[in-house]
């Protein structure tokens, strides 16, 4: 198991959001975490990536406990987090942003290889190489954030709502790039509200409601599940 979460509790101060969450992601898998607004999906990712301190339970990454570890140390272990707000460096150019993404990579050859891969995956970023990240359009920002994540050659990538605020065409493009990334060997844990598309893309999924995991299974099975069809797919 690459990532293993055992009965995790987490939240913001006195407000507990996650209750006894257990999930696991195997090396090379594409796992989705879906659920309605306010279920605690983003909180889960923030806790794994070290931006939030867990209130209980255990997070194991490649066998090591990373629960409560500071964000930058979690990143060094090989976890890249692409947040909902993207957290780009708006007054830096696209290239500088990507270089900062490779902050934890010491080998220049590896950096160059990653940069080439990002530009290959998102040619749009190559065109805008010297433009400030703050001037990019919504879709380009998403690509920029994913690209910055790739630059650290992560073993596990946590992606939070990449389809948020994007036109369907661009959403498809972003999903396609995630699939390419997964085929290249990066494990992905994706949080999404776009349930239909996510279940088609991912291999396995967890359903989170009110801070608890209510369902889990292979994506095809979940897509045919009565509960999921009624509530998330609407047919």
């Amino acid at each position, binding site marked *: 198991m690459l990532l293993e979460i055992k009965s995790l509790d987490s939240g913001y101060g006195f407000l507990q959001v996650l209750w006894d969450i257990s999930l696991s992601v195997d090396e090379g898998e594409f796992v989705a975490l879906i659920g309605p607004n306010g279920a605690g999906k983003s909180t889960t990712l923030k806790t794994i990536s070290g931006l939030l301190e867990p209130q209980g339970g255990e997070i194991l990454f490649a066998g090591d406990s990373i629960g409560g570890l500071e964000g*930058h140390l979690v*990143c060094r272990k090989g976890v890249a987090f692409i947040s909902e707000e993207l*957290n780009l*460096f708006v007054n*830096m150019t696209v290239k500088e942003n990507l270089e900062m993404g490779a902050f*934890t990579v010491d080998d220049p050859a590896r950096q160059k290889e990653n940069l080439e891969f990002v530009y290959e995956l998102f040619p749009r970023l190559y065109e805008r190489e010297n433009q400030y990240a703050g001037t990019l359009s919504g879709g380009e920002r998403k690509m920029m954030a994913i690209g910055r994540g790739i630059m650290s050659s992560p073993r596990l990538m946590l992606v939070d709502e990449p389809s948020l605020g994007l036109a369907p065409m661009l959403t498809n493009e972003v999903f396609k790039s995630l699939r390419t990334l997964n085929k290249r060997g990066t494990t992905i844990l994706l949080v999404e509200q776009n349930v239909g598309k996510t279940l088609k893309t991912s291999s396995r999924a967890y359903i989170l409601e009110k801070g608890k995991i209510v369902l889990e299974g292979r994506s095809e099975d979940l897509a045919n599940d009565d509960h999921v069809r009624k509530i998330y797919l609407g047919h």
Partner: protein
Amino acid sequence: MANVAVESTIDESAIDKVDQTIEDSFVQKAVRWVFSAGGITICLTILIAIVASIHKGPYILVNTIITGGMWALMAIGLSLLFSVMNIAGFAHGEYFMAGSLTAYFVMQPIGKYTLDHPESFMAYVGPLIAILVGTFVCAILGVITERLVFKQLRIRNREGWLLNCFLITIGLSVIMQNGHQLIFGADFKGILAYWDFPSVPIFGVYISMDRVCAFFIAVLTMVGFYMFMMFSTAGKTIRAVSQDEEGARMVGISVDAVHIMTFALSCGLAGLAGASLLFMFPSYPTVGVMPLYNSWFIIILVGFGNVAGSIPGGFMIALFQVLTRSYFGEGWEAVVPVLLISLILIFKPSGIFATKVRTVWDQ
């Protein structure tokens, strides 16, 4: 008539289009910059400087350039502190004081030595050593402050951070001023000159060697600082944290380390200014107050968190002071800049170089 109206609308839309194209020519960019608030102010300042120097003599220009560089250094540090850590530093003058005090104690034996051996290399290098030690001591002092005070506050409470830090820095300032008085006494601790050489004539004005050196130190430091921030990895991490702390953490930057670096840099720059200006401002407990006010004037003038803008801002404030001193007299020196700052706050609260401080306040 109808034709004219149609033509004018077409013209306007054409102008809009020109404004919106991303790939503008350099001339277009320059023209647009000149007509922005920052451009107008800078051009006006240069104009005023030229007119005044013709009217009163070139010493106005020379004095402006020499003191402006040092105020810019102070303001850069203050600006950095604000943009990276959201700290409104009101203790910054005390690092200036600490810098000048350290330089004084280092310079004391060096001065005695060079008096006996006027031809030794110490006469050239000694003052530099004093200034560097002053800078270094202040950088360390800054790191100690960060670890002992701001880190502790960060761990415990991040609510009302801006106001708390404001109060803490004022407290620090009081402590450091009184500490100086308690340990070293309230008398003036100054030197006659760093570099005891004949004055250099520039445009018919005789300028002491110390002032010339102070100017070169300021320029070199500014260039060095710019290179550091733009091209070194460490500088880039500082910029990254100032733009998005969470994002910096996500790419693996240790925000803690960046904070230490920021404090070292910022306080080091204040110490450098204090040490370099020891020949003008002898060290005493409240020597830092005036430089602190000056650097706040600069920051308000150019906009909070605008590090690069501090450099033209420093020269502008220095020019206003030199002008008031020579036209209205010594006592008005603080009045005119303050008046100017008040006007800026009323009409252009974000400073003359309208920058987005969104990332700073969003943290």
